[in-house]
């Protein structure tokens, strides 16, 4: 989306950065307003582009018209119903035409795409997600809000469990390896990095074959046992059991590269001059790690974490399909296959808003966690 336009000014002292009184509030407010305008503009552009892409610039209308006529023709001409079979060719054609007209009107195809595209944009920006064209929520509703919300909990569980586990494991292991550079474990992680070239679903297939197919100790997929336990505790345990394989797949596929990245990251920071200086002054290793290495690395770590959290919104299409996991990724994939613009736009508009909000708040979080970062004009020393 948009770049983060926070200026890092290492020369500015802490006292200067804090500013004083109302001037600081005004500066922050002005900066925040400016950022909001920029981000909103970026969201508008992104959403409209999504609308255009999801509709292939209006070509989807042609596809829909073809599908409608084909489906209705099949119902009328290929029916075994003697009432329909008895109709003459002209009567059948008239019947098809009338039903096609009704159906096209229902789907808004009686209006030009360009007009509908702005309606899509307006609804999206006001978070009026409306109704899907074909897709249904699992409980049978066409409200885009429900389609997405129903799939959110399973995705949160899977991606939350997988990625958060992965994030913190990689973070602390990376830190450990940076401290133990050249150790056996360090060399092992470096050697295992190529294993991360395969996606999670690839490992998922193997895990299914081994643990579900051969050993038969874990389920093939799904969210919960069938039939689902009526007791809530048993239900939760069943979900946990079903979570093991997909979470493991996510973990296995990314653990080596994530740990390696963190390790390199910490190694670079641990070789900064001020770290060397602290070491020379005899500051303890723990203090160096906490104050001189970990703290300056917090902004990128927080950025990575927050982006990872909002990425949960988009789910993981193939992994969810392999494990038959009823998540957002599967829903979005289905929507793309059906050219269901409201669902595609709805999903993307929420992601866009989440991303914009994340970017916006990150500016402030940076300023809070890193004393070198300042917000607003005083910090701009380009």
């Amino acid at each position: 989306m948009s770049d983060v336009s926070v200026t890092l000014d290492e020369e500015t002292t802490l006292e200067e950065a804090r500013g004083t009184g109302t001037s600081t509030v005004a500066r922050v407010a002005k900066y925040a307003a400016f950022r909001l305008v920029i981000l909103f503009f970026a969201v508008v552009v992104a959403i409209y582009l999504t609308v255009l892409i999801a509709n292939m610039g209006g070509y989807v209308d042609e596809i829909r018209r073809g599908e409608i006529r084909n489906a209705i023709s099949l119902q009328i001409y290929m029916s075994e119903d003697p009432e329909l079979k008895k109709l003459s060719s002209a009567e059948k054609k008239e019947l098809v035409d009338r039903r096609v007209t009704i159906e096209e009107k229902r789907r808004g195809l009686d209006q030009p795409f360009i007009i509908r595209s702005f309606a899509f944009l307006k609804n999206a920006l006001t978070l009026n997600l409306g109704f899907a064209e074909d897709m249904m929520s699992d409980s049978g509703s066409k409200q885009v809000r429900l389609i997405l919300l129903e799939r959110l909990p399973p995705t949160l569980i899977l991606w939350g469990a997988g990625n958060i586990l992965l994030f913190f494991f990689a973070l602390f292991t990376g830190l450990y390896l940076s401290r133990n550079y050249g150790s056996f474990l360090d060399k092992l992680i470096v050697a295992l990095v190529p294993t991360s070239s395969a996606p999670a679903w690839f490992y998922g297939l193997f895990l299914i074959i081994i643990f579900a197919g051969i050993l038969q100790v874990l389920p093939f997929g799904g969210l919960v046992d069938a039939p689902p336990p009526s007791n809530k505790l048993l239900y939760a345990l069943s979900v946990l059991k079903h979570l093991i394989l997909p979470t493991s797949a996510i973990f296995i596929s990314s653990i080596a590269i994530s740990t390696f990245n963190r390790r390199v990251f910490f190694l670079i920071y641990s070789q900064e001059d001020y770290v060397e200086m602290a070491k020379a002054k005899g500051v303890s290793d723990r203090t160096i790690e906490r104050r001189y290495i970990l703290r300056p690395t917090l902004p990128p770590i927080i950025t990575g974490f927050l982006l990872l959290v909002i990425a949960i919104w988009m789910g993981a299409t193939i992994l969810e399909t392999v494990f038959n996991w009823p998540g957002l990724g599967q829903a979005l994939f289905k929507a793309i296959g059906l050219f269901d613009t409201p669902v595609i736009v709805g999903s993307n508009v929420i992601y866009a808003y989440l991303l914009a909000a994340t970017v916006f708040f990150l500016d402030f979080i940076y300023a809070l966690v890193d004393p070198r970062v300042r917000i607003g004009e005083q910090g701009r020393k380009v």
Partner: protein
Amino acid sequence: MYKKLITIFGLLIVASLALAACQPEEVAPEKVIETVIVEKEGETIIETVEVEKEVVVEPTPEPVTRQGAWLDTVVFVEESSPDTAVTRLETGDIDVYAFSISDAPVADRIYESDQIDYYTSYGSYNEFTFNPVLEFEDGSLNPFGDPQFREAMHWLVDREYIAQEIAGGMARARWVPINFASADTARVADVIAQMEIKYAYDKEKAQEQVTERMEALGAEMADGVWTYNGEPVEIIGLIRTEDERKEIGDYLANQLEDLGFTVIRDYKTSAESQTCWVSQQPSSGCFSYYTGGWVTTQISRDEADAFATWYTPLGWGIPLWQAYDPSEELYEIADALVNSQFDTMEERNNMIREAMPLAMADNVRMFYFDGVGIAPIRSELSVAADLSGSVYGAALWPHTLRFKDRVGGEATVAMPSMLTEPWNPVDGSNWVYDMMPMRGAKGAAVYPDPFTGLYIPCRLESATVYAQEGLPIGKTMDWVSLEFVDEITVPADAWADWDAENQVFITAEERFEELPTAKTKVVMVYEEDFPENTTWHDGSPFSVADMVMGMIMSFDTAKEASSVFSEAYVPGLESFLSTFKGWRITSTDPVTVEYYTDAYSLDAENNINNFRAAFPNEGGLYAQGSAAWHNIVPAWLGEANGEMAFGPDKADKLEVDRTNYLAGPTLEAMKGYLETALADAVIPYEPTLGDYITEEEAVARYENLQAFVGRTGHMYLGTGAFYIQKAFPVEGTLILQRYPDYPDMADRYSRFAEAPIPEVLLDGPGEVAAGDEAVFDVFLDFKGEPYPNEDMDMVTYLVFDATGALAMKGDAEPVEDGQFQVTLDTSDLPAGSSKLAVISVSKRALIPVFEVFEFVVTE
């Protein structure tokens, strides 16, 4: 200690004696005289020999006392991957995969597994659609616009190669527009065989005819490439990518390139391809050939409309069909066939024989195979699978799915998707996979026979079809009577339409200026103890009011004055009214319903299923299932209040959700409307239904429904052998539980456990002197038992002489059960190797069995 040992020893002896007494009695082998076919020195002969056979004493079967379904519980789950499904079947994670698998490697795994059985179905067929326009708008030549060029494609395409190699054996080569799994295949087997011989793969012949036609069209061959006006002749193959049609489309492209054409391969999915072959004028030139594919979920009893449907503008009303220009002769026969302008079946069959070669020569559609699909099931279970609709399309699955060795138990059925659309009986989901669990719950008065497509009774005792003299209607089963009459006048008091404003039926007398006649009248007599023997799943008794409500709704939803009106239903009602003349309930003990219409099916049995209020199988009392009047009411009130809608059109228009009886926001709203209905003792359409429903009954029913919703969490009611115990939409799971009050015994449909397709063996002389009479035996059996002759619909034969020409045809003569005979006068047969092809069709399973016997005719 010693005493204890003696006691234990004694007890062991007693126990072993008792166990021995339980063993089956040893029976000495019995000597029987059998006629067997043996091979001696390469020659097949029949001998009578004495053989010893072990006598198996079958235990006397215990009488079945269980009502309703064999199984206690059926759990439906989703599994989108056939490959994974097979693994899950092998591990016992699922018991049935309700999907028709046509992928050869997956099918091989099933064939090889000793833990999995399977059911074969014949529901799909593929063809090449040719663009009939000779010159596209840009002036380029489309050789497929020339009928003789199109005809040459028959010889260019090796159908057997496609079926065996590309489809991996999961298909049967097909030449003609008639489905293999249809009654008509056997009726006109002679002309089908002729077409197969005439259009057998012959690439040289194809090349000759293509060359001749291309030159006639003004094209030239330059450097091995066909050109027209100096430009290469480009053929655009619109090739579907989802299945084996990608390879098949490529195969045709390769064959055409071999002949010197430049082929552009345009790979597209279903949705993308429709923008071309459905939406555009064929003259736009967006395709030259298209790899079409079709599916049918029901065994076809009548294929007479195939010619009009596939070769003439009488087919679909889209630009492609309107560009068809068949010969006048073909058009006339196709038109006559589709409009049933024949008096006898023989006349009709002869018309098909005439149309067939004309259609094959025209060849705007070139059929090349009937797909074969298999539905896997764990070997300890069995089910009555439909020969066309497989397991997921089998109406009788609720009554026949069972463990072979025990009664009861739980089975898990996986399917590629489920709960795809909202479930509501008026206009809810009709997805094939949703229909399977729906069939388990809804119940019906008749079911289609899974092997013949003819309807068999469930709640009906008998039916009589009165047909106007001269209509080509026949009957097969005893439970239906067929009578031909000179004229059928619709009675004045028959209900012929609906007055939505006053909520009363319009009688025939009121609708028509003078009482009309109808082509058929169907009288349906229900079981003596119906409707008392039938209850809805909430315990409410079934009543005639439920049938009347179903009929009212089918009119009312298309009437503007109605609170549940939707304009989407208007065209459907108008076409229905164009043939519907009236109906009435003539008795309530036993319940007897009469139905008058101009529409009819060729089979008397299948005229029973055409009337919704008669509680038929397909659909049910409503278009998409059955429902009691009282569980329609909450949704009916909700729609009247603009909060939900039965159909998608109205739901979209009002921007509300489509009514869903299983889950979601509309179900929550319906619970509120149920309370309103209970509080107000609502009787819907009171001016009419007030005659059938009392206030007390209404209150009792609403209370039953409320209790049911409390137990199950949903509002979907049926009268079937299972009820929906719980739906878990997000988890993709549906639980069906046996309904203990279902009136029929569990074994009522046990005879449908396996398709009784006869096994056929031909025997006769390997060598015949020309002029001699030759007698050939046709042995038919099923599971080792002779096939009863009365169960055979036809055993016909064709004889092809040494030149491959059809020399004679006829019907085999019955000798005794399981044996027919063909007697040939060979005087006209030339010397050489001749073939006797016998086509056998059972009345109990509509799959024709072809068997060929070769013999040599000597001088």
